[in-house]
């Protein structure tokens, strides 16, 4: 019988909070094993303790004040009993970690090749020159073109995907037996995500590495692991082979989680109350918002880049236009111009057929980050009342009444007026953001990535709320997101953006089922598939495409 690569039994992690020995339990009695060459995925929503488990495998809680109980053995080393020297050998030598944010996870001051060489030298005692050669070798292996020259670059000279490749190269440098990847693709665009997952998959097959993949994205796990562990509130909810957990979940929570995951072929949430999804016939009236030849550039002379390069679109009352695109495609810039937060360099925005002048109450915005888009020093009621005050309402009693109404409308309580943003969860804060946007009774709300900072179950609730509000009041919505599945759920029409231009636009089913533009097809092919068998099929077809390219 081969010894397991990772053995975790009854792991409990407590973090101290405040003083007086108070603590929160981040991980509550988790056990699992992972054999060499196998892959385990840990999925769960934020705060479920999944990253804490990953960090515990490398003993990263040492010296932070956290209290651990239970046993953690990695590659035969008892992590909690290991001496500092043993721990240093384990870290990188036996088990290497790939972190989420590839920009902040590399030293910004040093050349990438030097950083990899430094780690390699610690574990191999190789000479400076040999370590540098090894760095180039692993960079080449992870697909960095011209590795000799690129190894001298600083992290800021790499794109997001290349940085993540460099981090994986660092992990490979010391020939570890286990790779721990904590949300390795969360900060990346969907096409880059597919490439990174394919790379991890290839490396695993090539070197027989064990893989522990921590992710909030069930689709990412489905593509990459053999076994799945579902966590919630620090405890393991369900564990089993990936196919059976995903297709026949035993636990109610797993079913709930899977049901909330937006799917490309899933039900249209905006139609949930309308069994008959007849396409709306655009009314004879002028569109609520219309953009004609919008263009906006950024940057200084000589290095100017057009973020939006000539975009025209129109949204009518009661309609939702989805805008999808990868980072840097110009979708947020476009959204800001529609609202009037940014002036276009050329082109025109019309609200109800009239050229728009500045910011008006008739067009509102919901922002991505519900934490930073609310003033932490003012109560949520005050924040919601702001647009009303801006519109000239002075009567305090009337303001309170209207804000209370709005709070109830978005599923909160009127009595929450005097509470502060930190007292709410992420999803509740986004509800506050929506209430603020609704306050001046707008005809159009532009939502810029309104759910991408939220967990899937919360995401589903917020998109349902938006759809419900739209049915009631007939407002028009522009829904900007990078997540193709979410956009399909909520939109009537969709526009696909790339490099500042709309490459394809049309009714949502048409674009998703019969994409006309190659870029749309590429995007759709990169979306993680929940069915492991289908995912494997997709991967092999992608790999053929890489080979021919």
């Amino acid at each position: 019988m081969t010894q397991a690569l990772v053995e975790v039994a009854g792991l409990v992690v407590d973090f101290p909070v405040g003083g007086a020995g108070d603590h929160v339990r981040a991980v509550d009695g988790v056990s699992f094993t992972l054999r060499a060459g196998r892959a385990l995925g840990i999925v769960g929503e934020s705060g479920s303790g999944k990253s804490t488990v990953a960090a515990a495998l490398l003993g990263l809680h040492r010296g932070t004040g956290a209290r651990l109980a239970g046993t953690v053995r990695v590659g035969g080393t008892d992590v909690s009993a290991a001496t500092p020297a043993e721990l240093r050998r384990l870290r990188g030598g036996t088990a290497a970690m790939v972190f989420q944010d590839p920009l902040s996870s590399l030293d910004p001051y040093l050349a990438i090749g030097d950083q990899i060489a430094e780690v390699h030298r610690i574990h191999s005692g190789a000479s400076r020159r040999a370590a540098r050669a090894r760095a180039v070798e692993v960079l080449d292996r992870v697909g960095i073109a011209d590795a000799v020259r690129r190894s001298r670059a600083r992290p800021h000279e790499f794109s997001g995907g290349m940085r993540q490749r460099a981090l994986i190269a660092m992990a490979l440098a010391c020939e570890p037996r286990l790779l721990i990847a904590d949300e390795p693709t969360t900060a990346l665009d969907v096409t880059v995500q597919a490439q990174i997952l394919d790379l991890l998959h290839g490396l695993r097959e090539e070197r027989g590495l064990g893989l522990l993949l921590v992710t909030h994205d069930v689709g990412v796990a489905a593509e990459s692991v053999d076994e799945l562990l579902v966590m919630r509130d620090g405890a393991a909810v369900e564990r089993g082979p990936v196919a059976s957990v995903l297709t026949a979940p035993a636990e109610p929570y797993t079913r709930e989680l899977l049901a909330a995951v937006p799917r490309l072929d899933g039900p249209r949430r905006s139609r949930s109350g309308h069994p008959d999804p007849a396409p709306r016939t655009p009314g004879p009236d002028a569109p609520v918002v219309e953009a004609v030849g919008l263009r906006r550039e950024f940057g200084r002379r000589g290095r100017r880049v057009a973020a939006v390069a000539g975009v025209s679109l129109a949204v009518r009352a009661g309609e939702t236009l989805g805008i999808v695109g990868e980072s840097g495609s110009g979708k947020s810039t476009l959204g800001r111009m529609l609202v009037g937060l940014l002036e276009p360099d050329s082109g025109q925005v019309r609200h109800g057929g009239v050229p728009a002048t500045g910011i008006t109450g008739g067009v509102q915005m919901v922002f991505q980050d519900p934490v930073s888009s609310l003033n932490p020093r003012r109560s949520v009621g005050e924040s919601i009342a702001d647009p009303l005050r801006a519109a000239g309402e002075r009567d305090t009693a009337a303001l309170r009444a209207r804000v209370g109404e709005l709070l109830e409308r978005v599923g909160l309580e009127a009595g929450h007026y005097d509470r502060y943003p930190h007292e709410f969860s992420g999803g509740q804060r986004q509800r506050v953001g929506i209430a603020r946007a609704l306050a001046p009774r707008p005809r159009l709300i532009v939502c810029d990535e309104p759910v991408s900072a939220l967990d899937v179950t919360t995401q589903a609730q917020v998109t349902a709320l938006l759809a419900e509000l739209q049915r009631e009041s007939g407002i028009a919505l522009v829904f900007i997101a990078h997540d193709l599945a979410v956009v399909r759920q909520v939109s009537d029409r969709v526009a696909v953006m790339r490099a500042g231009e709309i490459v394809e636009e049309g009714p949502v089913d048409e674009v998703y089922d019969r994409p006309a533009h190659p870029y749309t097809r590429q995007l759709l092919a990169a979306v993680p598939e929940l069915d492991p068998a289908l995912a494997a099929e997709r991967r092999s077809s992608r790999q053929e495409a890489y080979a021919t390219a």
Partner: protein
Amino acid sequence: MTRFVLQRIGGALLVLLALSVLIHVLFYFAPGDPARLACGERCNPQQIAQVREQLGLNESAVAQYLHFLQGLVAGRDYSAGAGQALHCDAPCLGFSYQTDQQVTGLILTRLPATLSLALGALAIWLLVGVGTGLLSALRRGGITERLLTVLTLAGTGTPVFILGLLLLMAVCAYLQWLPFPTYVPLTEDPEQWAWNLLLPWLTLGLFESAKYARLTRSSTLEALAEDHIRTFRAYGVGERALVTRHAVRGAVAPVIALSAVDFGTMIGGAVLTESLFGIPGLGKTLIDAVRVVDLPVVVGVVLAIGAAVVVAGAIADLLYAAADRRVALA
């Protein structure tokens, strides 16, 4: 790089020009008649009128300022009565009312003493201050850190002249290890120069060290909390290497920026230390000139200090860019 230097020089010239306008405005509105001040106590009205003529004080304020600029760039002549002219070579800052010495020459003779003091103090605070800060960041939570915290707090809380007096009393009066310092120029006797400057260096350097120890400690701890430090910790890099190889680079940036400003200010601002140890530096010169309303000297020294601050700032920017490649010099 060339572009950066040119831009900085252009910027520096603008700053100095603005500074010179400001001082001249103050000069113009200052109480008292410059001609009377320049002439001295026992001048009769005719003599005062003659001095006024010589100094060009009959001209409009704008013309006087333009003549000042002309003197800086090309030199100028002052009439010395009886058709004679007193020539002042560029860069001309005029003549002292008190000593009739050329201000430019005066500044040049005082500069070495000030530079000697400031450079020594800089070396001490970079060594002692940054060293202490790094040490307490490395030993956080231990007895060493607590001891260092107490020391640096005491250091920041002690005014520089008290520190200087204590050192002077202890070392020169009580222990008698050193004679009371007098300034000896470097060119005369390097050894005596260093021995005599030792106490002023320590006074100023230790005083500043306390501030730099706290700055270095906090910025190192901040740098240690960054994500990339976690990466290298997860790859088995030891704590010492984490600090000395990875965290330090992030931590030095504010130290460089603040050092440049402090060094620049020290060119004219180390008055207390200079007075205490009898160092004939620019700060002492400035205060003496202000006391007797020797306006040309005040203008000249203030401009010199301004130039020092601007140059130190530019050097800091260059060092900053060398430490962090993401900073574009533009």
